[in-house]
């Protein structure tokens, strides 16, 4: 990428192979008000840094009464499946961090989103874990504006407006959901018999959550109150995944408007 050549090795450098060291070092830089962008090569390997992220980064502002903070820290990491990754190059660990109050978690779906959300994350006054769906590195292509722009954290985006059902997802599954909507509307001959005609005209509202923590509860509940149905899709496994948290919150707020239980379509465990 030429970043080290352009900005120098004092600003762009390799580190020894130790995620807890990388995270701790980044926290140290951020404690002094510097901007630190730390890369964890695969989200599957973020767990050695869990203590530094959850016990330290997330809590520094609170435990110091606001005197210290590590808002300057952004941790970037490739996430989600790529096809050939097996158990250890495919994970979606965002659920493990959702309970670490003080952190933010962001997952972009495309190049334009990635640039705006990454700049927003770097400039946000809180430590952010920025998880990049690795399969999209080469497959998602967009004309990205070269000027400076930010996209807001904590805000979902409605990709397809609808009225019959809310389909909520983030990262790679956004594209699977889009494909599913097309298949539902005009199924191929082999699937026709399996999809009742009455369903094919359903207007599904597709939402990209974009931020996992804090997540846009307003946008989601507004949508579900209109549609009466929610399906959450995520690559991570079912149990205690992000979908579980969202389901609990939505059933609390939209109980009387729901026409069906909240459904989660997730990775198998």
């Amino acid at each position, binding site marked *: 990428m030429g970043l080290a050549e352009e900005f120098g090795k004092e600003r762009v450098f390799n580190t020894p192979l*130790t995620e*807890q060291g990388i995270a701790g070092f980044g926290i140290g830089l951020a404690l*002094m008000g510097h901007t630190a962008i730390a890369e964890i090569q695969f989200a599957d390997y973020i767990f050695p840094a869990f203590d530094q992220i959850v*016990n330290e980064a997330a809590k520094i502002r609170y435990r*110091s*009464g606001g005197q210290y903070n590590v808002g300057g820290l952004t941790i970037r990491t490739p996430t989600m499946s790529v096809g050939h990754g097996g158990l250890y190059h495919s994970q979606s660990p965002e659920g493990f961090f959702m309970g670490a109050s003080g952190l933010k978690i962001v997952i972009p779906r495309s190049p334009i989103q990635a640039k705006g959300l990454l700049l927003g994350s770097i400039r946000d006054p809180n430590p952010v874990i920025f998880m990049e769906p690795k399969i999209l590195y080469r497959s998602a292509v967009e004309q990205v504006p070269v000027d400076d722009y930010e996209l807001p954290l904590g805000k979902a985006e409605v990709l397809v407006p609808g009225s019959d059902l809310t389909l909520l997802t983030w990262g790679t599954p956004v594209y699977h959901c889009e494909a599913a909507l097309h298949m539902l509307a005009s199924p191929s001959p082999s699937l026709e018999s399996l999809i009742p005609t009455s369903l094919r005209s359903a207007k599904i509202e597709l939402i990209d959550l974009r931020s996992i923590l804090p997540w846009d509860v307003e946008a989601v509940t507004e949508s579900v109150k209109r549609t009466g149905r929610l399906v959450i899709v995520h690559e991570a496994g079912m149990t205690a995944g992000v979908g579980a948290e969202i389901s609990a919150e939505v059933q609390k707020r939209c109980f009387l408007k729901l026409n069906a239980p909240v459904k989660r379509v997730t990775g198998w465990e």
Partner: protein
Amino acid sequence: MIRLSAVSRRISFKWGARGLASAVGNLPNSKSPIVSKLNFFNAVQNDSGLIPTFRVLDGTGKLIDGAELPEIDEKLAHRMYENMQLLPTLDNILYNVQRQGKISFYMTSHGEEATIIGSAAALALDDEVLGQYREMGVLLWRGFGVDNVMAQCFGNEEDTSGKGRQMPVHFGSPKHHFHTISSPLATQIPQAAGVGYSLRRSPNRRGRSIAACYFGEGAASEGDFHAGLLLASTIPSPTLYIARNNGFAISTPSSEQFYGDGIASRGPGYGIDTVRVDGNDVLAVLAAVREGRRSVGHHSTSDDSFAYRARAEVEDRKRIDNPIVRFRLFMESQGWWNAEAEEELKTRLKAEVMASFKRAESIKRCELGELFTDVYGGEEPWNIKEQREELIGLLKKYGEVWEPWRTELAKFKNSGQDLLKP
């Protein structure tokens, strides 16, 4: 057999032609010399002995043979001694206060007075300090004050370290360049490497300031120790690591904590300049930390990719001799101290600490609303807002009618009214 030796001759001829035949010389692209004798090693020192311990004063306060007195005058000695005495004065009172249940937790500095004050005196006042939990002496040296110590231990509204949120001894103060203590051990070690690096990257501090990181020999078993020293030595950072070895990690003796020659033997494993110091000898600690600081700060201005960071391992032997007595005997030998001065100091310090304690005991906690502040910077997320509202609802319902809640609320400044009537 004949074929084999013919082959080996052929091969050695070829290797000879390329200069690889001889048993002397080094591994390619390395300074590692080639040897023909198989020899396992297990010691840092060439003679396989233990790493030696640096000392200046003997147990009676006299300079040992060949020792040089570090630069010190009467004024500095008095200041060091006073702070060394302040630690046990605070410890004796707060330890008992904890046993009585008035504060929930306490960590004394018993036996480590020389280690902490000696190193604090050697550092610059604005060197960034990242400690574990026995470094209150560094804060006292820098003027934090007994009142602030009491406030944090009682968690009252004057607690600048953390608004009463943390357990006692979890101090922190940007003003004094002392990073807030956290309970998980050794997490500060890689952070100190990053803090040091930030000093390198700051034009007004590069080559002038260092980061100083304290930890105990037990914490040095954590993965963060390994990660931290690795980062500090390879990136590299002007960070001085000070390992306090008092022979115990809570109840685990050193014999059950590590098998090698202490923590000092690990430094060279990371390419880090290391010294082992007698932690009960405040002058030895002073001299060693000054030199370590000089060396570490000096190297931060160079662009060596392979630069050295200094690390001091400070050994305590609290059962054998007392660091405070040792230094007092030295001061008396210089004519800088006497029995009257000792009496006056002890009386004054005890009165100061008692007065501060009595005052802190009756001060209320921060306003209850502070429970929800400082979780995030910038805009407050919805979950925090809603959870605050939940507490307000509960307070409205039970705050006055339920006696346990009424008693608890009274401990907070304004008794929760900041939430009920904002």
